[in-house]
């Protein structure tokens, strides 16, 4: 059994820069190749930002990803404000945190229910679950819609938010909007409890590999999503401006998404990284859930990233409710609403400069870096996306995993690999597409469809 040849070629698609494959090649029981190929035509966002006004950057870069468009928006705004020397007001920062909590919640629910759960329940997608687990599917769609509806009230929509721009918000929530958002979110609590119960009943694969985890860290008591230094479980700490030294991007021929490393060959970002670095700062209710499912830092089983997402979902729901309650008690200052096109009106001084945004988005820490001229036009742009930072680590995980499960059937090996990649939640489409698998050598390859 262990002397056999296995060649796995799993086609998939990444949200960041398109199509890719899992390629695993075992010859006479020995692992020869273990790669995550990213082969899709890139979209060159960094290239097309050059020549655009830094005030437009957020609008363009939110289009990098439909799922975490709010995260890109916030990282982009932070980089732009850093370059322009704008300090956002406390109210603006709180509302941005609210937006980020909503996005985290929305994305994690999508991943837990629509991607991870079907594997753990032994089906190909949520579609068969409509019949077998109707209440689960309805709950997932209901929770997702609630996040979406709250975003609609706050920023016009979740996919490509409208009113969050450089300087603040073009529209601020009225009293009735705060009430509506609070009703929606507090109404989600029973569904969240049911989600915790469901997740606690799921059994995750056992696999461990000691890994360096990277996430934002800070000295205050807040679980850092929007602000902080770059930290790692290997003891690294550096300001966000030094992000290039933290990521050390390099290009590999088999991937149009760049790879990264820090203290070791690779590192991981995302929910599990944040959980491992900032566990004590989680909302008490989230820590209760961690205790209930027995997840403790430092956890080095990548499959449990999904469990960390569950814990963060509880955290984000409670923190979001907390922010809204604060504004209910302290009133919104409506004078802070800003007019889009500040630059056209020369309302703020514009100077040449360079700025970095570092924001935790659902899949990990995201960096945007812009260099602008004296008119506020972008000269250079750089974006480092969480999924790219995880690619290298996923390959190292696969290298350790494949020999451990080589005695299993082709189907089981493939599923184990797919679930591993999926646990990193690289993006919805990549994960589900991975179920189209080719085994070359042991059987005739299937014809890939469109």
């Amino acid at each position, binding site marked *: 059994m262990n002397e056999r040849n296995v060649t796995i070629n799993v086609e998939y698609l990444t949200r960041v820069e398109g199509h890719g494959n899992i390629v695993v090649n075992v010859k006479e029981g020995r692992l020869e190749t273990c790669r995550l190929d990213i082969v899709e*035509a890139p979209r060159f966002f*960094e*290239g*097309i930002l050059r020549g655009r006004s830094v005030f437009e950057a957020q609008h363009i870069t939110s289009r990098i990803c439909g799922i975490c468009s709010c995260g890109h928006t916030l990282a982009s705004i932070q980089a732009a404000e850093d370059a322009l020397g704008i300090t956002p007001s406390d109210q603006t920062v709180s509302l941005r945190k609210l937006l980020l909590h909503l996005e985290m919640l929305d994305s994690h629910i999508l991943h837990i229910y629509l991607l991870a759960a079907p594997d753990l329940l032994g089906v190909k997608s949520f579609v068969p679950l409509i019949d077998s687990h109707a209440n689960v599917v309805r709950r997932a769609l209901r929770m997702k819609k609630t996040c979406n509806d709250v975003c609609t009230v706050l*920023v*016009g929509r979740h996919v490509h938010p409208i009113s969050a721009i450089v300087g603040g918000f073009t529209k601020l929530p009225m009293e009735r909007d705060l009430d509506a958002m609070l009703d929606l979110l507090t109404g989600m609590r029973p569904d969240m409890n049911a989600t915790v119960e469901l997740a606690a009943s799921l059994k995750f694969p056992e696999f461990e590999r000691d890994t360096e985890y990277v996430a934002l860290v800070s000295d205050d008591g807040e679980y850092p999503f929007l602000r902080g230094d770059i930290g790692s479980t290997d003891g690294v700490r550096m300001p966000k401006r030094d992000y290039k030294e933290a990521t050390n991007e390099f290009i590999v*021929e088999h991937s149009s998404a760049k790879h990264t490393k820090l203290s070791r060959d690779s590192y991981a970002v995302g929910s599990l990284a944040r959980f491992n670095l900032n566990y004590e700062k989680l909302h008490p209710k989230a820590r209760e859930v961690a205790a209930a499912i027995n997840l403790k830092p430092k956890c080095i089983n990548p499959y449990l990233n999904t469990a960390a997402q569950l814990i963060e979902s509880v955290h984000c729901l409670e923190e979001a409710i907390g922010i809204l309650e604060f504004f209910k008690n302290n009133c919104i200052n409506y004078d802070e609403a800003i007019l889009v096109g500040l630059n056209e009106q020369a309302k703020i001084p514009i100077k040449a400069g360079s700025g970095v945004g570092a924001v935790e988005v659902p899949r990990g820490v995201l960096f945007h870096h812009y260099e602008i001229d004296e008119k506020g036009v972008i000269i250079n742009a750089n974006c480092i996306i969480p999924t790219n930072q995880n690619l290298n680590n996923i390959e190292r995980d696969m290298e350790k995993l494949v020999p451990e499960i080589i005695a299993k059937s082709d189907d089981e090996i493939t599923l184990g690999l797919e679930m591993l990649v999926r646990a990193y939640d690289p993006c*919805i489409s990549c994960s589900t597409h991975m179920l189209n698998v080719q085994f070359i050598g042991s059987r005739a390859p299937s014809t890939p469809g469109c």
Partner: protein
Amino acid sequence: MKRPKVAFFDFACCEGCQLQVANMGETLLEVLDRVDVVEFREVMSERWNGPLDVAIVEGSITDQHAVERIRQIRERAAVMVAYGSCATIGGVNGIKNGFDLDDIRRYVYRADYRFFPTAKTRAIHQVVPVDYFVNGCPVYIPEFVEALKAVLQGLPYPVPDYAVCVECKLNENVCMYDRGVTCLGPVTKAGCNSWCINNGNICYGCRGMLSNPNEKGAQEVLRKYQIPEDLLIKKMDMYNLCRELDKNE
């Protein structure tokens, strides 16, 4: 009646428009009751390689591989729907067409740029015939539902060819020009219920230019508010640079 076979496909895009479908919430289950979704990578892993009644395509065509893939999909599909700005007008992917392609590849991938071929961005109809257009970045779900109803009944869905201003006025928004800001509403196709202006932002032209914009009127507005024409053109190019390829044909 047999439920029509519907599939979603994506090319170069952010997949946010497909996500808009998932964002419909439990209404999605009602839609799924009417159609047989045989392929939808964003939320499904099942695949289907046979003929399709309706192909809903998101994204732009940016390389030769995509050209071949969209042609294959077109052959399989009785009806093709271009879905979202990247598919209908090229969208932000079109900004690339304003650069030298080798230069932009080198900028992003440095010495290794040859590993990453690319071509001028094209909208779907610039490669294969398209039957229905659902504009927007992202698509506006109420409009998508209207268009889908038309598709399923075999009726045409005429994209509104009047300005966003028409809807904006009905929504009683203060004109962005009166607030001192340039807005693309006067030259952009309506159908989004002036989504962005309702939320305090300007129109960025994501739904495409009107087929017959009131150019004189627009120029008059620019003069009245002393706005340089090239500023407006630059804004239009964020979503609409691929329209140049329509002119050449």
